């Protein structure tokens, strides 16, 4: 399955949009955190897990989804949220902890919930999986269309929830897809030091479901494999496990010096940044001109600037709002 031109441009646009967000956040994050870095300070306090480099997985999968489909994400959710169509203004406002945010500032960047596009997160490793399986069950029981995709990191594949959720989805033959973003690291722990298999897709055999590994952080390859899996799920043929090779261009969280990384590993990664790579490919394939892509990048920057402006200008929540929305 190959992406149409429209789909290629959609993927590029959303990769760029996601990267623009991360770059804007990265800049603002350090406001108020210099000279001494204190996570509690600045317009964006708290932990910040950026997705730079991992955009191809999000867009390659979400290109096949619409608002009715379900996505659950992790502590590193921005690229997936953007690819799923989460409202960018409300998302940015949430990251800033503003009253106009997705949850009015209650959740923050690890807890992006947008009911309009069926997007949810958990900051606990692999704990997005159960809810995604349950949403898939809900659709099956209600005979409603929709697939549920749970994005996790490769480190999450060693968490019990991964095993339980996949077995449950397989036993009940649910429209569920688990997408592992293999960026080779779980904070400072290398995949090889934590995972008994070289590639997690082989674990699909434990659930008698298809498993795929996708090399190269390649949006087109991801699009193709995800498309097949999602079509299978929509056809009622059950779950699929996908592991996609990708990489983390940022630290685990902002402020991470990454002293644990082998010398020079990072330089090699920047050379393989998927966004310039896709840009070059679109041009080489004659799918777009420099001008087309410049326009997309400009539009993305403008869109992100507007979201940042919205977030900055939005009001803080009232302190007492902390006590509301505990129960429905």
């Amino acid at each position, binding site marked *: 399955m190959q992406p149409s031109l429209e789909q290629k441009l959609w993927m590029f646009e959303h990769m760029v949009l996601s990267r623009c967000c991360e770059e804007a956040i990265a800049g603002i994050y350090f406001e108020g955190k210099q000279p001494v870095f204190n996570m509690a300070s600045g317009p964006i306090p708290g932990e910040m897990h950026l997705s730079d480099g991992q955009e191809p997985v999000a867009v390659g999968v979400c290109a096949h989804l619409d608002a009715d489909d379900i996505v659950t994400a992790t502590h590193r959710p921005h690229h997936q949220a953007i690819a799923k169509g989460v409202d960018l203004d409300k998302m940015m406002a949430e990251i800033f902890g503003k009253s106009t945010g997705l949850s009015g500032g209650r959740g923050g960047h690890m807890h992006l919930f947008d009911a309009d596009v069926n997007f949810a997160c958990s900051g606990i490793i692999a704990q997005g*999986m159960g*809810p995604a399986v349950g949403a898939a069950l809900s659709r099956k*029981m209600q005979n409603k269309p929709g697939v549920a995709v749970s994005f996790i990191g490769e480190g999450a594949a060693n968490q019990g929830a991964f095993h339980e959720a996949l077995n449950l989805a397989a*036993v009940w033959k649910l429209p569920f897809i688990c997408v592992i973003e293999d960026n080779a690291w779980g904070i400072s722990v290398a995949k090889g030091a934590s995972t008994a298999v070289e590639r997690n897709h082989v674990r699909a055999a434990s659930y008698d479901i298809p498993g795929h590994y996708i090399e190269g952080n390649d949006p087109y390859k991801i699009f193709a494999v995800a498309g097949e899996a999602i079509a299978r799920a929509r056809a009622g043929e059950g779950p699929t496990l996908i592991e996609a090779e990708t990489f983390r261009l940022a630290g685990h969280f902002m402020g991470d010096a990454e002293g644990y990384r082998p010398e020079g590993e990072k330089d090699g990664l920047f050379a393989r940044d998927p966004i310039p790579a896709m840009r070059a490919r679109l041009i080489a394939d004659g799918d777009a001109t420099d001008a087309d892509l410049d326009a997309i990048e400009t539009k993305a920057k403008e869109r992100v600037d507007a979201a940042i402006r919205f977030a900055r200008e939005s009001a803080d929540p009232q302190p007492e709002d902390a006590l509301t929305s505990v129960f*429905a």
Partner: protein
Amino acid sequence: MTQTNERKLTIARAMAEAVAQEMRTDDRVFVMGEDIAALGGVYGNTRGLLEEFGEERIRDTPISETGFIGAAVGAAQDGMRPVVELMFVDFFGVCFDAIYNLMAKNIYFSGGNVKVPMVLMTSTGGGYSDAGQHSQCLYGTFAHLPGMKVVTPSNAYDAKGLMTAAMRDDSPVVYMFHKSLQGMGWLGTEAGATVHTPEESYTVEIGKAAIARQGKDVTIVSLGMGVHNALKAADKLSESGVDAEVIDLRSLVPLDRDTIRASVAKTGRLIVVDEDYHSYGVSGEIIASVTEHNISVLKAPPRRITFPDVPIPFARPMEQYCLPNPDKIVAAFEEIKAA
């Protein structure tokens, strides 16, 4: 007390009836858990449901509590209204993240944009030598953490009404039922739990305590099985002319502090009976809720009859030594009556 067309049900049957009635009128309600289908639940509370509603809506699960409770959260967020069973509350340790970090917090994380209408029902309590991993109550553990309502019935009437209220609630409700009250012959049965239960569907408001017995000399606050121990103690005390008031909390979250405070203001004495562990739990909270409100109402120091801070022993003499019982309650009153 007999009444016209009295209809006594066990708690197990009352729970199953409430679920069945709701399932007939609401397609979104379904039941998930281990051994809840063909077996009808180890404690009988789903008996008959498979026969009426079939495998699609009455789902036996793998032994994967994290998986299926997490799935219940996702189904609830997607518009279903799952009733999910954790067979013994003691097993919460294998799946508590799905309960306290997902089920209990996703409404808040979404700023109220998603609802999590689900019921987590789970069995509590010992007294039949099931030892340290199958006899706990853990009321305090669940009640301490925000985002989930916590109810525990002491009789079939409340069991049915609280279950119906829980299923109709858009927030997660933890429904803790005590094994010794289920009316399963093989667990022995506290007769007082099997009471008249109307056939038609009704609700009991979550968050309101009940005065199980009116009295003026001492307030005995309890929940679940403890209510029956309290009532038996009250009967013994009445023989010596002491008139005890017994409060059945019914709900730990929300906690009906007003009813407790009003009663203690009247009686001046407080005894809390809780089968859960002694420290950092329900008994401390009840005592603090009274004293922080008004220190002068108490004529005597409050007392608590609880399970000591030890794992629950298997052997009968040791377990029975640790459990609350009517005599311990009476003895506690004797200590404080002087005042």
